[in-house]
């Protein structure tokens, strides 16, 4: 009984002392953070702060210069394919779907890592293969339904409007059955309505038992969404805490927003409407 409660108390994802140096440039310096179960963590910071680089380190695209990243107590391998298998999935800041595949096929590629059919089964299409394929399609359609794209499953993904492409990326990432989902600026380029839809979607994802880390520039969005917020500036964690704490921290306002306290709300609204 104790092990179960220990497990839920321990953080799900833990990064400790992660540094990433490119040549002479220190993109990340000793970054540590934790994500609990069913938690939404916001990662904010000015341009070039190292947010995307941190995601790349988490998912194995980059091998950190130093530091350790573990999921559920096990160190994550530095190979994106294995990280996906371990249960960390991501979306990209600049959308990277498979443009000439249909919407459904994009999600099916996300299922790849949870399917087992090898080349031989794929050639002969036996009963076992067909069953697995049917289940994968069912699951993918559920996910499309979940993000609200089931009407366009046959469309080529490159023909989707921008907001739908972002949602499709989320569905594709969810298809890998992650325990942690990394979203890199999921509302960039969205109108206020789509942004709100995305927020509800992230809540729903959290409620389904998946922890989420969200990178966003839209602070209003982040403060209304996250359980905890980490502010990254020039590769270092400046402040970490609940939205209320972070919002009122003068260092954040100075470093990130560059405005006196009373203008915070105004800045955020402006930022959102500027999109």
């Amino acid at each position, binding site marked *: 009984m104790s092990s179960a409660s220990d497990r839920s108390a321990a953080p799900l994802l833990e990064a400790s002392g992660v540094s990433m140096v490119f040549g002479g440039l220190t993109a990340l310096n000793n970054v540590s953070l934790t994500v609990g179960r069913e938690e939404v963590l916001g990662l904010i910071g000015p341009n070039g702060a190292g947010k995307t680089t941190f995601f790349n380190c988490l998912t194995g695209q980059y091998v950190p210069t130093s530091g350790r990243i573990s999921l559920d107590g096990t160190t994550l391998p530095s190979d994106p394919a294995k990280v996906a298998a371990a249960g960390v999935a991501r979306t990209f800041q600049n959308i990277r779907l498979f443009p*000439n*595949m249909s919407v459904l096929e994009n999600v099916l590629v996300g299922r790849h890592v949870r399917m087992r059919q090898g*080349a031989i089964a794929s050639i002969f299409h036996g009963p076992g293969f067909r069953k697995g394929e049917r289940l994968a399609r069912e699951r993918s359609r559920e996910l499309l339904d979940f993000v609200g794209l089931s009407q366009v499953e046959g469309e080529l993904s490159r023909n989707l409007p921008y907001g739908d492409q972002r949602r499709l990326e989320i569905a594709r990432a969810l298809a890998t059955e992650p325990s942690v989902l990394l979203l890199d600026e999921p509302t960039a380029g969205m109108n206020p*309505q789509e942004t*709100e839809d995305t927020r509800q979607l992230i809540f729903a994802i959290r409620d389904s038992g998946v922890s989420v880390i969200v990178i966003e520039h839209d602070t209003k969005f982040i403060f209304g969404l996250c359980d905890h917020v980490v502010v990254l500036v020039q590769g270092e964690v400046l402040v970490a805490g609940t939205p209320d704490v972070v919002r009122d921290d003068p260092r954040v306002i100075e470093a990130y927003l560059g405005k006196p306290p009373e203008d915070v709300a105004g800045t955020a609204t402006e930022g959102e409407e500027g999109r």
Partner: protein
Amino acid sequence: MITKLVAGKPGLARPLSIVGGVLLIVGALLPWATFQLNIMPYPALSTLQFFDAPFGVPGFRLHVMLLGVAVIAVAFAPAAIRGRTTKALGWGALAIAVVNAAYLIVEGGGFGTITSAHGAFAFGAVVSAVAAVMAIVAGSAYPAAPPVTWDLKLAKPLEWLVLVLAYAALLKVVADTLTAGGRGGAANPYAGAVFLSFVAFLFGVFGGLNGTGLLRWVSAVAERHRAFSAVVLLACAFVLPFTEAGTEQWIYTATNIGVFAATAIGLNIVVGLAGLLDLGYVAFMGIGAFVAANLSGAASASLGVDLPFVLVLVIAAIVAGVFGAIVGSPTLRVRGDYLAIVTLAFGEIFFKAAQNNIAGATGGSNAIPGIPPLDFLGTPGDAAITVFGAELAGGVLYYLLAVVIVALVMVLFANLKSSRIGRAWIAVREDEDAARAMGVKTGKIKVLAFLVGAAIAGVAGAVLVHRLTTASYESFTFLESVTLLSAVILGGMGSIPGAVVGASLLFVLPEKLREFSDYRLMLFGLALVLIMRFRPQGLIPDKVRRAELAGETAEGGSLKEAEERAVAEQERADDERLGRTGVTEGRS
């Protein structure tokens, strides 16, 4: 430029296309050559004028006339199909006119051949070309309309009948194309002209039918009855030896085409699905060929073992597949151009190694001759056989074997493509990093593409070598790799019918155009440049599946629906925003 003149004036389109159509008929009836050429008379009674006997027009002139009639008929067809159809018919007629004019000018020694000389006039080619251009211009002047689709569903037996008729027509087209112009060479100097004119005519006809939406409808019907159409298609392939193309020579050519079509489909896995350029692909075919030669019991092979052919096929596939995996392994590290260089180098290494009789396995410049014919249940593969009282030419059994191999490779390709593995290949082609982030082990999956592609080439090579009866390194040059790659690109990457049509065209052409054999690479290059410019998706792009996934055959329909959906979506979103604004602001 001419197109621009009429672009805004759809009123001109119909009169212009009617005039074009009439002039095409006139052009077909006018003489095309001022004199009988010296070597032998030019085809289609080119010096005769046919106004007194319009029903006697033969050959390409008949085709021009038919296209003219069609252009006129289309002018009175439903508006939506006029533009595309007229344009396609016009291009077909133009190609026929240009091909024959070019041949007449070159063979006749000057422009006098197709204009006037020695008091004789022959403006058939010129009039037809001008008329064809008019049709093309008229086609572009018609108001632009989305591609037509037929929402027609018939009773099952009727749809089956449609398919049988369609495939019978296809069989006839294939037989006619194979035999068109006969075999090129000194004794038959105009084979190329006749063949090219016929292909141009087919392009006009198929393009026109495509414009009417008929082809899309038939392929939708075929899609509805997949198993049935597969059976009919296979049956048609088996009937080919009973047609006029059933002579030993054309069956031999058809066998070659089959073998190379299978290889092209294999290459399509590597290039079309996984998006990896392979410039040395024919080497795998060569490996399969030499494996089979050594296991065939040929007296000249250093390894004089005689194994059952099925076993030989398996071994050839495995050996070639292993080499494929080895060659593919650099793909773990190198991308794009570098990979092309690695594969190119492998092709050359294979060629040189085979030339130098490496390990005594290839016979070097002596090759491995005298490979005994395959044994088909007691009948040697090169023997003539009698079926249903019909005497079939020698080599028919090899042809049937090639058909079976192509069919199997097609099934293999289609199955792989719609599987976890196939999707991973396509994902790697589309965005390797994203595929990796989704958990696709991109290195393994790329090596697997090379392995499967190479294994298919190995099987094809094993069949080929028995048909050739000699395994020589000379059959597996860089030129062959380029031809296969061109076939894939020409037909449409990732498309099965595309690979078959591409391989058919590129491996029949050399039979017909012997006089151009020195320019083969140049012509391929030209063809590819044209394809890339005007139809980058290939002749028969891989589209059927997309339509199938959309749950409908109509591109136009699905577009319209998507639009309606978008509007509805927007309205819903608007409603919600109005209803929810308060909540949003309360939260922040």
